[in-house]
């Protein structure tokens, strides 16, 4: 029932023993020598090939997950070819400037990618002992990020967005404005953008591509496109293919790569679909119990490695279903990533752009990337002070709606004023691009409205140096 062919060193086995087709899964019986996670090619009755991988083997039954739909397959005539190797992606420097589908095949009408290397799309775990702690400050031009939640090279930072919130707009703006600021001032390092569109609309993807084109970054960008109308299951592969390309460009070609993945919520839904098809026990809200590990296998592929010049920085977009930050997708993401930028619907309605809610936002790698030699020595304490006042101001705002401004003390009033100005000027900067110096100057401008004795978070020497009065 099966034939063997020699392809170089690889042995390919072909079977016609499909016993069941269920959702994206195919069950093949009476197989032998099948490897876990092996790539398979499924040839349908019309002679077209679709790829998939082995999910499970039990005695002589292999369970295969197709990356495309199972439509048009039948039990008797479908042939399944086991390739003897895991799923790999052709990677090459010439990918830059190309538009590929969610599996990494060109769809821009250009020639095939000439592979310089074939890489396992699952990557391999980085040895934590060779990671370099991310400490190079990336200036995004956005005060709420640079001043309060700084991004470092090699970091993975998600934007928690929601339907109707400008998450993608913000990501595109960051991609266009991001610069590395260091004491050496070396800004001309080779960079690249890898853009993975996961189940987003054509409108959204063309917005991104247009943005890349207008900022001149398109020729340094690799685009992986899986649209909302493309097969769901392909979404499992798209971010992995994109990260494999990014790792190659970073660690083998020495580029500083910014990976933008949008929208991870679609990825998680594909994961759930697959899990349901496998009849696995669900954890929260029907998502599989291993979703944390699965997401980590994507997000942890950011970083810097000793002895390699390049880096992989990830900007991850996800939509919080119903703006719920405790939903499993943002929740598990927040546990893996190094912070999060949270967008707020109320601020959007007030007309603030970018509508970043700084209170739940965080950057875990900020401390190593700011301060003397990176940005400025007062950066950390200024950020802490702004946070303290703004949090207090938000509380006061609530209080005022209940009991009026009458009972506020003088200092309360100043803090309330501060927090309003902060939202309007500091966060609501519109589409302008601010340097970190401008952001810090604005901070001191606002802080100087409050008597110095209340600036408890700022050491006295910085107050003497920067306080404006």
């Amino acid at each position, binding site marked *: 029932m099966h034939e063997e062919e020699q392809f170089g060193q690889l042995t390919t086995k072909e079977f016609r023993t499909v016993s069941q087709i269920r959702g994206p899964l195919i069950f093949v019986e009476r197989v032998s020598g099948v490897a876990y996670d092996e790539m398979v090619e499924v040839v349908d009755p019309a002679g077209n090939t679709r790829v998939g991988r082995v999910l499970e083997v039990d005695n002589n039954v292999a369970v295969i997950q197709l990356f495309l739909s199972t439509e048009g397959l039948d039990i008797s005539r479908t042939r399944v070819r086991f390739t003897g190797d895991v799923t790999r992606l052709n990677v090459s420097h010439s990918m830059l400037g190309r538009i590929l589908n969610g599996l990494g095949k060109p769809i821009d009408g250009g020639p095939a990618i000439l592979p310089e290397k074939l890489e396992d799309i699952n990557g391999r775990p980085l040895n934590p002992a060779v990671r370099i702690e991310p400490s190079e400050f990336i200036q995004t031009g956005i005060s709420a990020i640079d001043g309060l939640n700084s991004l470092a090279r090699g970091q993975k930072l998600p934007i928690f967005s929601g339907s109707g919130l400008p998450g993608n707009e913000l990501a595109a703006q960051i991609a266009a404005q991001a610069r590395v600021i260091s004491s050496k001032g070396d800004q001309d390092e080779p960079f690249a953008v890898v853009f993975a569109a996961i189940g987003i609309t054509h409108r959204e993807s063309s917005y991104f591509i247009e943005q890349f084109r207008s900022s001149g970054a398109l020729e340094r960008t690799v685009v992986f496109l899986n649209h909302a109308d493309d097969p769901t299951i392909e979404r499992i592969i798209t971010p992995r293919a994109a990260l494999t390309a990014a790792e190659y460009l970073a660690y083998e070609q020495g580029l500083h790569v910014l990976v933008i993945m949008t929208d991870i919520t679609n990825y998680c839904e594909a994961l759930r679909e697959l899990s349901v098809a496998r009849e696995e026990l669900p*954890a929260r809200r029907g998502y599989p119990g291993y979703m944390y590990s699965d997401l980590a*296998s994507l997000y942890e592929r950011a970083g810097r490695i000793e002895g390699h010049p390049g880096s992989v920085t990830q900007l991850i977009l996800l939509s919080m279903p119903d703006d719920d930050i405790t939903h499993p997708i943002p*929740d598990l993401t927040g*546990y893996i990533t*190094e912070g999060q930028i949270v967008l707020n619907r109320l601020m959007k309605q007030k007309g603030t752009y970018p509508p970043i809610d700084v209170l739940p936002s965080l950057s875990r790698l900020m401390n190593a990337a700011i301060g003397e030699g990176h940005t400025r020595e007062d950066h950390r304490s200024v950020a802490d002070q702004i946070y303290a006042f703004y949090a207090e101001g938000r509380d006061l705002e609530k209080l005022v709606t209940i*009991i009026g401004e009458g009972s506020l003390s003088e200092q309360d009033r100043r803090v309330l004023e501060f927090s309003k100005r902060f939202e309007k000027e500091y966060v609501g900067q519109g589409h302008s691009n601010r340097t970190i110096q401008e952001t810090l100057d604005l901070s001191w401008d606002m802080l100087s409205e409050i008597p110095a004795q209340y600036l408890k978070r700022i*050491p006295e020497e910085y107050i003497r140096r920067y306080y404006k009065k």
Partner: protein
Amino acid sequence: MQLAFKLGSKVKVMDDLEKQAGKVKRIAGPVVGAVGFNEIRLHDMVLVGEAKLVGEVIRLNADQATIQVYEDTSGLRMDEPIYNTGEPLVAHLGPGLMGQIFDGLQRPLTTLAKKEGGFLGRGISESSLAMGKAWDFTPVVKEGDLVTPGTILGTIPETQSIEHRVMVPQGISGRIVEIKTGSFTLKDHVAIVETKNKKHEKVFMEQSWPVRMARPFHKRLDLTEPLVTGKRVIDLLFPIPKGGSAIIPGGFGTGKTVIQQSLARWSEVDVVVYVGCGERGNEMAEVLNELPKLEDRSSGIPLINRTVLIANTSNMPVAAREASIYMGITIGEYYRDMGYDVLMLADSTSRWGEALREVSSRLEEIPGEEGYPAYLASRLAEFYERAGHVSCLDTVHPADEKSEPKEKQKEEREGSISLVGAVSPPGGDFSDPITQSSMRIAGVFWALDYELSRRRHFPAINWTKSFSLVDLSRWFLEEVSDDYEVMVKETENILGREHELQQVVQLIGQDALSDMEREVLLISRILREDLLQQSAIHDVDAFCPLDKSYWMMKVILHFHEAAQEAMKKGVSLQDLDNAQVLQKIARMKELKLDNAVQRLQYLMSDIDTEVSRLGEKMEKSNA
């Protein structure tokens, strides 16, 4: 066919492999089913497939064995062989552990990086400890001495701060017939013990121990002494004893890792074992980068010299996460047995629980709550109960009539291992099974709070939800001050009052409060901002010794007392709120440690001076 593989120092050679090997019959992620073994026991360590992936037998059913594989099973084929090593998963214990970073299976990550580059390969190719390295061994026993398991044979200067004490391993007792002095590698024996039946047993500087078994000790001792962490909110309000266990639950971004890292840095213990279990790689890089540069406060020796790191980051194989926690605690127990105070930090136990859940679900077990296996709580209990303050083995010799009179009196050796586990509850909701099960076992509970972290109040330990069940008041009474407990009670009291008063303010505004009540709000604010809040990165504030913490608390409460007295005489709250001393109180954190206590005592009298001046001023204006 022969197979040789390294198990720590020993190279184990197995003959007749074909006879002993089983065959792969089922692969589902980290779970592999196999048949065809002649002999196999539960928890035997096996090597799976041609790549020799490390696995452990977790279920036996007739001739079928179910194996949990600690490595990525991609590419593993049906019918590949599985070799049984006949031994359980062990930790290799000996000099050279300190300052190292291992993965959950105790593979030395730095050594592997040099050999394999940036990405991790599979299989065991390096022994955990450097076998070729020579150590200076100085004996403390001599020929003819009687020894039992746990007896210290000699010492090795392992690092600048740790003297490694070579102990007699389990199963060996008798009379020393040879003891060596000088420089040896782990392959050389340092002593020979003649057992009762005249057998000569060689003793090496290294030994191994199955990670799932607690190492034995003589007896448990009471928990009487606090583990000073240098975090004021912990040391003052919710102290953890040496040998106790604590959990830190908190949603993402509430600062679990920052607290764990600062405990690793500043806790007053001899040895720290830090287990990064299913967490971020960049955070491990941060710890690794920082520890060699940070110096111990008292000795000035870089902290890396007392630290063992175990990293099983979130993208490394899931099943090895489960092993990493046990690996960490076994290494910790080994140093406890030498007589050290050990702190083991596990970040995060939720990832360990999730690994348990994943394997359980692949085994198709009937799930308990939230899909976690029904044995989750008992596994957690087993783990947390490995913490303790003990009298080590060897402190008392078994009575043996035939033995000659003891040549010297053994001194009592005590050690402790304290355990701090981070918990990452989904959505920050403490009703999740791991938080709830851990809470029942651990005696200390530091609840992290979203609200506090959002306003950047760190450490974000919520003072109304947290607790410490261990009574250490006697120690504080003897070692710090006799009014210590009163002060702590008063602090808790004011913070509790604030909570009530705030609810009133939320409803009807500050105007509804009396001046005395507003004074409580002022003091509680000072307590929160100037005492409980503490920077993790500030040079001086990052570590606060117990006496400074105590005096800071005392200063604030003294102000409280003085203010209340003054208000009774008619001094306005406004004047007190604007008092100059409050500026100084706000800067107490930054007082350098060498004379902090003295300066704080001066501050007490400054308070008296200023408050009484306010009183005089008021009297004058009245007159």
